[in-house]
């Protein structure tokens, strides 16, 4: 066990810090639309020009090929510098790109990877369907082969940023006779292809870029298939050995900063008795110190993930533990914020809009990317070795 940085790593931190200070975009990130797309792509372009694009990608594909510890430093400094994290470039950088690197053809790689790194293309994901959520393998969006094309009909849902995306990683059923995960194909879908319509889905927080996508006789060249036709499940489950979830560190640090804001707020707002500041209220204090301890533990858990990442050839199911813990803790922290606000939480005004939006938005954390229930199944079965059972 150790926890120390070498002089080279400290120098690396200085370099990153200096570059970020000069280059992090100022001004608030737009919530949606063309302005959001331009903001995210501009930040990506700037990282590319500065030599910081694809920090976990191997060098031979234009990435930085940073060590795990360097990635940790990069994300810590990003959080420190209030750099934008995730957003509409996330799927391209952290999922579609890495999948192409491992499973794509030379043509696919040489066409798409530079566009992702240079901030010229936005990707979205097309996996979930109205009737295939947690049970992804039951998906029904069909594609038949006609000549050199796949012809797609059906619908995908919960697709973030579909309305501003250029490309989609799309999972379709190419063999209607095959059961479940057999007979699926992973194909690159051009989001501007004829036959695609997009419906924006309003969310309970009033924000977000969720969409449903409809496919009506959408023709995609067979050359866009990644892996084998009918071998798509395998591609979607590709273990991205170099993609170790270090991007998560930024979320963890952001959550820690959020709690520290609440610590300050607890000194400023009145507590439940209407007279003394909240920080003098016993129940509030109990919650605050418990949350502070939990945030400390979340940080330690990210370091534990990194430690595992350095030893395992492929990431194990342990990642579900931290994802689950983060999701539930983020909800507790935002609920605490609303509690501190008291009656002020019932109206949105200039001082509190983010607290309310973030509180409502946090409900997605235990749903998106695998519900907490599914994650608990995975932890039980793959980590603890409990037998599979009815769902």
């Amino acid at each position, binding site marked *: 066990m150790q926890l120390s940085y070498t002089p080279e790593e400290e120098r690396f931190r200085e370099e990153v810090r200096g570059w970020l200070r000069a280059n992090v975009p100022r001004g608030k990130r737009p919530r949606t639309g063309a302005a959001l797309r331009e903001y995210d792509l501009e930040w990506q372009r700037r990282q590319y020009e500065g030599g910081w694009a694809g920090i976990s990608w191997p060098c031979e594909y234009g990435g930085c090929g940073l060590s795990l510890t360097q990635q940790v430093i990069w994300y810590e400094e990003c959080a420190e510098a209030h750099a934008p994290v995730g957003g509409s470039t996330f799927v391209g950088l952290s999922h579609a790109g890495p999948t192409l690197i491992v499973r794509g053809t030379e043509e696919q790689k040489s066409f798409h990877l530079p566009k992702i790194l240079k901030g010229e293309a936005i990707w979205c994901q097309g996996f979930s369907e109205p009737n295939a959520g947690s049970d992804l393998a039951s998906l029904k969006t069909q594609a038949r082969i006609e000549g050199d094309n796949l012809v797609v009909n059906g619908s995908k849902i919960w697709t973030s940023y579909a309305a501003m995306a250029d490309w989609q990683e799309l999972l379709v059923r190419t063999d209607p006779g095959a059961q479940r995960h057999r007979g699926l194909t992973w194909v690159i879908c051009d989001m501007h292809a004829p036959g695609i319509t997009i419906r924006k889905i309003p969310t309970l927080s009033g924000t977000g870029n969720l969409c449903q996508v409809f496919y009506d006789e959408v023709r995609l060249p067979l050359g866009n298939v990644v892996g084998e036709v009918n071998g798509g499940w395998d591609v979607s489950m590709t273990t991205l050995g170099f993609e170790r979830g270090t991007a998560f560190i930024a979320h963890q*640090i952001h959550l820690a900063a959020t709690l520290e804001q609440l610590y300050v707020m607890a000194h400023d707002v009145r507590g439940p008795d209407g007279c003394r500041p909240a920080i003098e209220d016993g129940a509030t204090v109990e919650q605050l110190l418990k949350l502070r301890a939990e945030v400390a533990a979340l940080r330690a858990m990210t370091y534990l993930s990194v430690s595992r990442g350095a030893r395992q050839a492929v990431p194990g199911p342990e990642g579900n*533990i931290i994802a689950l813990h983060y999701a539930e803790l983020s909800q507790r922290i935002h609920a605490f914020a609303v509690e501190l606000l008291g009656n002020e939480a019932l109206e949105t005004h200039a001082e509190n809009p983010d607290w309310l939006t973030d509180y409502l938005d946090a409900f997605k954390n235990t749903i998106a990317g695998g519900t907490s229930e599914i994650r608990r199944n995975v932890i039980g079965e793959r980590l603890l*070795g409990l037998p599979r*059972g009815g769902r």
Partner: protein
Amino acid sequence: MIDLLPSAEQQQIIDSVAAFLAAELPLARLRPGSDGERSGDICISAELWQRMAGLGWFGLGIPEGRGGAGLTVVEEMLLAREVGRYAASPAIAATIAAAHLAVRGDRDLLENLVAGKQRVAIASRLCAGSDECHLLDARGAGYCLVVDGSEARLYGTAAFDEVRAVISLDDAIVLERARLAPRVRPLLRDAAGDVGHRISLLNSAQLLGVSEAALQQSVDYAKAREQFGQAIGSFQAIKHRCADMAMRAEAAYAQVFFAGLSQAGGQPDAAYQVAAAKVISAEAALANSRSCIQLHGGIGFTAECAAHVFLKRAHLLGQLGGERRWIRTTLLSKRTAP
């Protein structure tokens, strides 16, 4: 380099301690006999204590020049974690921590502690600032360690009067109540936090061990026990409970050893991390042991199942005296964003 996993050398320490405890102090020792009664003497014998010393347990973190192994608090914590799993005596951790007081003050005492000729018990104030103390496994101990947050003091057992045995919630230890005589001076004292943080870390490591043992026992049972024609671990109601236990144990492991490394490396926020480790590990041990009882059903309610041992040890270690006020103050202090 960030590494929160044990090195090969550290794994050897874990394996050696675990093998010793499994052979000499198995949880089965706490099971009632056929007459329903527990065996009378549950204190670690002088002979067994010396064998622990012979394995180097009490000098792991003591400098090599002073008769120790020259390792860090992290290795001591790895040992304490196994001690927690077997609900072995908290005097083991107290003796390890007290040896660090002796390093600076008392060469003979250090020698005796490391050699297993003397042992130290924890004296835990009933509430912060009170002279009323609980003595944990003090029979056979010549000294008691009193911890008030960052401050640690070592007293001879003669400093305590009105000693009387009480019935312990955790019946794997001998519990006594006593009064620390007024104005008696400690034999040794450390106010800098080294020993205070160390004993807190060793307690947290034991709590981590409790939470992990409760998890392990629950998972084993969920795989073996069948109802409705299948292992109960296949049911989500059970599986999700186990997943929650795993999540708590993982959080506790990460925070406890992160705090240990912060302390060993002299990080400026070490006290904060130590306090957070105590909160997280205490909660994990309590919640996991409660879950462990429920998950076992009827057998979990009996004294034949170890689940209650974990619960009671979680209460015992979670309570330790004046530490609570210190944890509160430390975790509520102003700090720069982590």
